[in-house]
């Protein structure tokens, strides 16, 4: 029996003890973190738990919690934490807690206090899709955030999560875990990338899959490789059977996904008789198939407007063709389907195609069928060729989609279902920038009148968005030129921007007349000039000595320059140059010569698309750094 006074003592002691626990001197948020992770990480995930539950055929659930430390603020530091909701997804609960570096909690926000923002859809605020979010105050790092939430999804099981516990540079992870609870009979497919296979266990009727990473040290991207799956662990998840928009389907192979799309698109081609007549009148019977398709595409571009409704949020079904014809607008699905329907009226076969679009997007995992696409285009087979039509652009040349959809696997949907096809990969002859410059120097001042003629072929029309420039006014065009010319202290006298030609490998052209001050630098009695700086590669010097990831040259290209300087009789080039560098990555060539009163400089750079192993790094480094060094070559003009 403990005496009463002893009980009080124990009680008081216990109270003081627990009180002190919360205020232990020296306790910070850095406890137990290895130094190697602390040193250069911008962010450290202390503990992340992602639980994805497939409750039944139509319902799933996500329980998420993440504890992380922000050590250094960068461009990627989030200003706010958010959870997206839509007509299928409801947020059940959520909480954000912020701790300062002394591990004192300075903020706690529950779901009811989260702010709300609705997604604006073509200027209309859509009632059911948006996000709940919390703004993070401007605290000096280090600080800790604990973010947790639960969402339920009903009526849409087509999109299972992609788990990427880390996908940015300078982010480390102490512990992160994904668990999938499958209550259905074997409805889960998965693909583990840069991580070992999951631990699978069974508990009554539930199959549990578990992946975990521990002590992942931050990564710093290496130049010439931005493929995150070369660096980071990732798990792709997808169902075998799914429901979406009241449609039930399978996702086990690409063919079945194609069949699902056919289901969605069925009966949407419903032109009225009058509309059909109108479409038939657009072409003449003498036209060959190529011309017919071109005329329909032209009609599409002139008469419709693209309106951005993201795939997945606005629904997966395209607008009915009758509707698009009347309203004259649609999103990528609607416009693509509309074009397909118009061609069908003329008896021309074409295929609705799903694509993961973007200039720097990774290709889809071909061995993992899923609905991970963000765009639709049209595939039109004409004779032995395939023409890919980008139906959302009012200015794209016929058959050109460029870096947005090039060189990747896309899902072409035909009558029997879907199949993967690779889109066109532009070779170096289809990506050329040619610059011809005529210079008339005044050696007394070092100034010069310059005429620049630039020709762009194929992908090169996307150079600095030249593509859309011809459709802008003179003022914007002049602004564009002022920004992209790699010169200082000059003024533009005259310029011409010619619209891009309408071919599958389009061509673009512009020329400029300028007057530049001090382009020839006085060096004693000579003049200094750098001719190879007008058509830049954009490379940066390679400085690292080690290499971990593959070297990727994404697209082949050619740069060609011819610079011609008209000089008086007494001026000549002190020394000529004739240099050539050949390698498996490409070639580089510069030369110069003088012919009477003309001094000519020639340059050609060609890079070949490819993926090269890290063992080739030293050779590649020499190749790139030599180009950069030689591009800076200085010539001396001497008098007498």
């Amino acid at each position, binding site marked *: 029996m403990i005496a009463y006074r002893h009980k009080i003592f124990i009680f008081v002691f216990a109270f003081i003890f627990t009180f002190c626990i919360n205020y232990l001197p020296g306790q910070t948020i850095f406890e137990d973190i290895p130094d190697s992770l602390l040193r250069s990480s911008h962010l450290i995930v202390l503990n992340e738990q992602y639980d994805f539950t497939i409750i039944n055929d139509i319902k799933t659930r996500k329980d998420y919690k993440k504890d992380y430390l922000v050590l250094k603020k*960068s461009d990627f530091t989030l200003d706010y934490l958010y959870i997206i909701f839509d007509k299928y997804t409801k947020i059940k609960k959520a909480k954000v807690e912020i701790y*300062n570096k002394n591990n004192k909690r300075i903020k706690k926000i529950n779901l009811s206090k989260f702010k709300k923002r609705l997604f604006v859809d073509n*200027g*209309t605020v859509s009632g059911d899709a948006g996000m709940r979010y919390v703004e993070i*105050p401007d605290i*000096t790092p280090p600080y800790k955030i604990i973010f947790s939430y639960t969402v339920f999804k009903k009526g849409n099981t087509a999109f299972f999560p992609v788990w990427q516990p880390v996908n940015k540079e300078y982010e480390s992870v102490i512990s992160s875990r994904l668990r999938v609870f499958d209550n259905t009979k074997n409805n889960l497919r998965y693909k583990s990338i840069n991580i070992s296979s999951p631990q699978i266990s069974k508990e009554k009727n539930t199959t549990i899959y578990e992946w975990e990473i521990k002590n992942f040290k931050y990564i710093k991207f290496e130049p010439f490789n931005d493929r995150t799956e070369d660096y980071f662990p990732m798990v792709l998840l997808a169902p075998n059977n799914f429901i979406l928009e009241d449609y039930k389907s399978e996702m086990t192979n690409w063919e079945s996904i194609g069949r699902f799309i056919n289901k969605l698109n069925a009966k949407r081609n419903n032109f009225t008789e009058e509309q059909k007549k109108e479409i038939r009148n657009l072409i003449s019977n003498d036209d060959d198939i190529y011309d017919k398709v071109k005329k329909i595409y032209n009609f599409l571009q002139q008469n419709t407007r693209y309106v951005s409704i993201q795939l997945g949020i606005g629904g997966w079904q395209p607008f009915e063709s009758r509707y698009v014809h009347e309203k004259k607008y649609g999103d990528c699905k609607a416009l693509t389907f509309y074009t397909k329907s118009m061609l069908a009226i003329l008896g021309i076969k074409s295929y609705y195609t799903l694509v993961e679009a973007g200039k720097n997007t990774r290709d889809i995992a071909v061995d993992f069928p899923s609905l991970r696409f963000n765009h639709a285009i049209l595939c039109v087979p004409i004779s032995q060729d395939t023409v890919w039509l980008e139906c959302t652009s009012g200015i794209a040349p016929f058959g050109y989609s460029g870096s947005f959809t090039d060189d990747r696997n896309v899902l072409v949907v035909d009558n029997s279902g879907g199949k993967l096809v690779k889109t066109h990969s532009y070779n170096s002859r289809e990506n050329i920038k040619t610059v011809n410059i005529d210079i008339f120097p005044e050696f007394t001042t070092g100034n010069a009148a310059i005429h620049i003629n630039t020709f762009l072929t194929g992908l090169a029309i996307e150079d600095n968005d030249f593509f859309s420039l011809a459709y802008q*006014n003179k003022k914007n065009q002049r602004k564009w030129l002022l920004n992209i010319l790699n010169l200082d*202290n000059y003024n533009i006298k005259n310029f011409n921007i010619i619209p891009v030609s309408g071919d599958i490998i389009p061509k673009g052209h512009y020329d400029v007349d300028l007057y530049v*001050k001090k382009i020839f630098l006085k060096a004693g009695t000579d003049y200094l000039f750098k001719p190879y700086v007008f058509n830049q590669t954009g490379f940066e010097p390679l400085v690292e000595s080690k290499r971990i990831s593959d070297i990727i040259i994404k697209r082949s290209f050619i740069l060609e320059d011819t610079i011609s300087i008209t000089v008086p009789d007494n001026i000549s080039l002190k*020394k000529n140059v004739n240099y050539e560098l050949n390698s498996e990555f490409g070639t580089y060539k510069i030369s110069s010569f003088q012919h009477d009163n003309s001094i000519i400089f020639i340059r050609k750079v060609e890079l070949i698309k490819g993926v090269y192993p890290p063992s080739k790094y030293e050779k590649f480094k020499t190749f790139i750094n030599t180009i950069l060094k030689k591009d800076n070559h200085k010539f001396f003009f001497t008098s007498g």
Partner: protein
Amino acid sequence: MRFSFIIFFFVFLLYNSLYSQDNFKEKKFRDVSIEELQMDSCDFYSGADAMVLFNVANLYIDYENVKGVVYHLYVHKRIKIFSNSGKSFASGKIKFIKSKAKRFSDNIRKFKAYTYNLVEGKVEETKIGKKDKFINDISDYSAEMSFAMPNVQKGSVIDLKYEIISTNIGNLKTWFFQDVIPVKISKISYRFPNFLKYKINTYGNFYSLKSKKDYHTLNINNHTFDAYGKEISMSNILPLEKEKYMGSLLGSLSRLEFNLEYIDPYYGFKYNNSTYEKMNKNLLGDSMFGGRMKKGGFAKVWEKELKGKSQIEKAEFILKKIQNNTAWNNIFSIYSGVSGKKLMKKGEGNTGEINWALISALKYFDIETYPVIIKRKKYGIPNPAFCNIFDYDYLVALVVIDNKEYFCDATSDFPFGIIREQCINDKGFVVDENYRWIDMTKNADFKQSAIYTFKIKGNYIFSDILVQLKQYAAFEAYGKYNNEKLKNELKKQFSDYEIEKIEFDTINNSDIFKYSISLKKEIEDDEIIVLEPFIKPYFDINPFKKEERISNVDFKYNITLNYMFNLELPDGYTIELPSNVRIENEDKTLKYQYMATNGGDKVVVMMKYKSAKTVFSPQEYTVLKTFFEKMTTTNKQVVLLKKLK
């Protein structure tokens, strides 16, 4: 003959009448025509993404039973969207005074807005919904109503109108004629009773400024008062474009400002804060302002740690302590209603709360400190002739140690003496018995010194560069250093060389930042060696490309650059030195000097640049452009080493 003349006359009128300043009659609200919807470009500024068709306001003084004397601002605005990029102009913000006492809050009434589209030849109207408007707090006493129009497309016309009723007659909203999109017509009619004397001034560029109509009477509460007023309009107003080194947008736009100069006491009502003297007195007597000066007792706990420290060390310590224990919640204020102890416990606060904790703590330890209230740069410069308390929503501490003045801000991790860029704006007001204005740019120094030591050895050029940054140059570099941005920038800057080593010497939260770089480059042609003494200096290319400029040029800081290049002349070579240059502008606020000397076996090139003020007017632009042209071309000069035969 006469008939055709009449037809011609009417056609002529019709043709000119769509919007012409002389015949401009404000169109009825919601009466949007097919012509307006069919318009596909701006007739006086090609390539516009959107334009204001008209912006009309009516401003007059009135009387309401409960509120008393109020001003009444009625606005009707019509906007046309030409392109997809122009859709963002279909949303807007209206800033207003929001006080805890409802009587003193501005009241936005009857806000109505519609989007119009041409659909199959017919005019289709969409009304703004409740969800499309929301209110954000900016500070303790100001907020803004943001709205986003629904169903906006290329070609849409937005028609909106609203009224503001406000008792803040000393804070009449500035009327902006100009915008960042072209404005066809902007017109304001104002009418004030003689007993309220307003000084009315136009600022910025004029675009067909017309002053019509003189008003002489005003009916208030069934009484007719002698009054004054005008109808002022501008038309075909070019948009203010974004330029390099642009300071305050609002401070550059063409506008009409109203300042209440005098109230005739005969009518027996007072208006507070009408002079700076009055404002100063009121602030000093306010428990949430002057009353906070003696509340530094919470800092007593640091007494032990501060023992033996110098004044400056004490001030730095206190500043750091408050910075480390508080986070700014993005709200602006000059007041504080919480004790320092409570603030530190909560861990977050607004600018007033955090900096009052700083000021009172500094004063507690006998460090000479004053509160300075500031008008943030984005809203323009303060008006020394007319006092409007609502202009000032930021508070910093002015610390005086050994006769030197420092500004301090504890809302973020600023080193001692460094403050937020938005606060480095013209003048701040020091609230004190002996109140005064203080130049906020006086300590806005950006100093960069670099020593480039070159050596030629064997077949290589070696270079050791020592860079020292001070004040704001250090502060900005330190920010970039933390994000790995600085290292990448330096790699780019010296991409012509092989970088052997980069070493940073940083002390956390200090106003000095040093680093050193070692470079080397193989000599291509040893007959002529070309050396750029200053590799990509701070002003590398001329930022002023255009011929003219409408807005001020604001460099943010007083910039001082001091570069020195030295080279030991290698045997067997002669030197060709670059030319000396010295330029200065008329009032000597810009100075540049470039000098190359050859003393025996050493070559020294020196470059100095100094700007003594942060803001240059558009009138000074041509001189500025020429100055920079000369400077950037001179900086590109080279040192030539020629091998002796």
